[in-house]
């Protein structure tokens, strides 16, 4: 099972799409590792620099609603995966992106808007870090001398995929 968490990257907008996560022109790469330098390259947000140390040092993403909408490209979860980001926390996800995350053994965690707002209160803390315990469905955020923990829900199937390391291993042993 993967490690879930690390320095938090806050992306404060809804409907961040797959073209913003990984532009189509990089879909010609045929290994996941080759995607590494292009993380969030076309995402334009105030104060956000895709090439910064903050972006490339992140271990978890916190964002708003309908994250990952658009294309079915699994290159979107993969560009997070090869950069060590194994968990995305959002108000909601587009279906295909969400399934792709779990299929890769990664976690797409949905929280109520009020809880997402709580996480965003840590956005200004330079040392904001999130640790996620998938088995016990809890997450903890620390930063700026504060700490908060919260419970989340994921479906039993999605949890099984994370524990199995992804859908190929799960399906291959079962079907």
């Amino acid at each position, binding site marked *: 099972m993967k490690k879930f968490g690390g320095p938090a990257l806050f992306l404060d907008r809804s*409907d961040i*799409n797959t*073209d*913003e996560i990984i*532009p*189509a*022109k990089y*879909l*010609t*790469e*045929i*290994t*996941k590792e080759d995607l590494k330098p292009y993380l969030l390259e*076309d995402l*334009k947000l105030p104060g956000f620099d895709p090439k910064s140390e903050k972006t490339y040092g992140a271990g978890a993403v916190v964002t708003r*609603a*309908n994250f990952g*909408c*658009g*294309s*079915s*490209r*699994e290159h979107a*979860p993969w560009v997070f995966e090869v950069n060590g980001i194994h968990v995305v926390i959002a108000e*909601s*996800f*587009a*279906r*295909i992106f969400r*399934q*792709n995350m779990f*299929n*890769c053994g990664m976690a797409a965690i949905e929280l109520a808007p009020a809880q997402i707002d709580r996480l965003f209160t840590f956005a200004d803390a330079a040392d904001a870090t999130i640790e996620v315990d998938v088995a016990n469905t809890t997450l903890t955020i620390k930063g700026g001398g504060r700490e908060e923990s919260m419970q989340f829900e994921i*479906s*039993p*199937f999605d949890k*099984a995929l994370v524990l199995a390391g*992804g*859908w*190929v291993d799960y*399906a*291959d042993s*079962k*079907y």
Partner: protein
Amino acid sequence: MGMTTAQKIFAAHLVDEPFAGTKVLGIDVVMCHEITTPIAIADLMARGKDRVFDKTKIKAVIDHVTPSKDSKTATQAKMLRDWARRHEIKDFFDIGANGVCHAIFPEKGFIRPGNTVIMGDSHTCTHGAFGAFAAGVGTTDLEVGILKGVCAFREPKTIRINLNGTLPKGVYAKDAILRVISELTVNGATDRVIEFGGPIVDAMTMESRMTLCNMAIEAGGTSGICAPDRVTVDYLWPFISDSFASKEAAVAEYAKWASDADAEYDKVIDLDLSNLTPLCTFGYKPDQVKSIEEMAGTPVDQVYVGSCTNGRIEDLRVAAQILKGKKIAPTVRGILSPATPQIYKEAVAEGLIQIFMDAGFCVTNPTCGACLGMSNGVLAEGEVCASTTNRNFMGRMGKGGMVHLLSPATAAASAIEGKLADPRKYL
């Protein structure tokens, strides 16, 4: 309680329910293209499982960048081609025979009412036009589909959209679906199937129904769905005539997949489109929609007619009707990409290609290229495209480029004027 089309298809294809709410379905058609399939192939090879569950149920096409534009895309095409040959996949479409996946696979009669369909492409929802459950998936789901012929879903609820009235002159399926998306918003149908019905849908061709279902994903929908009927049977007849005594018999058989009258919907939305105007997106989300009357006059650098949304023969006919005897504005680059070789040939035979070329359009081979900014019509920074495609995300057709989604008629009118234009004055 009756069942929806999606519920009936789920019940008929259920292989396993490993947990409450998760349904593993047997898949009838697994479609593959050269962008999302090669990594699945490579992973299967690395696992020592380079197999396919059923070579007759796998369909493959090179469509996103074709002919290949560089070494990387040539490698992707080669990986798909070699794999298709190795596994004797008969329904593989390469240069000379290839076209946009969601146009060519229906054209070959591969999708039937009641089918389950997956592909590593978000616009797979198009095939729901045949009364199928058709969902875009990622590469891992595709890989398992290739290996095992199954895919897991949360059973989606169904949103029923009734399109009532009649479409006015100059208003088409594209305008109707833009109206629906503006109603639902970009995530209003997440984990939902969008079922289209009502008198406007009943009167639509299969091509128009595919345009409707194609953009279900732009509202977050898992699949679009239209009930199979006589129109469906007429379209499929060349492929199914051996299986049925008559078209009536086929209609009666396929009717079992239609939603029951007492089916339970998540939501029912009635839209009377009798007064709808041609529509056009603004901004960078497909639910940002305005009347062309409000948008007219916005200068455009490029006009694109093509894609899995609007690259079919009826789309070319509509655009050609407006372009006939006219020239596009000198400030505009017009690009037409017929979605399949068959459409291209029909367009030649009907004189449509001549009309497009006389008007000043460049005609490319069938490919997805321009729609996602990969080839054959990429925008430069700051450029604007009036496009019959499905997605207007920032940079979708090229970094820093802006896309206005609209119908083929509105695209043609806009090409003539060099700015967004109302097509009704040309009809």
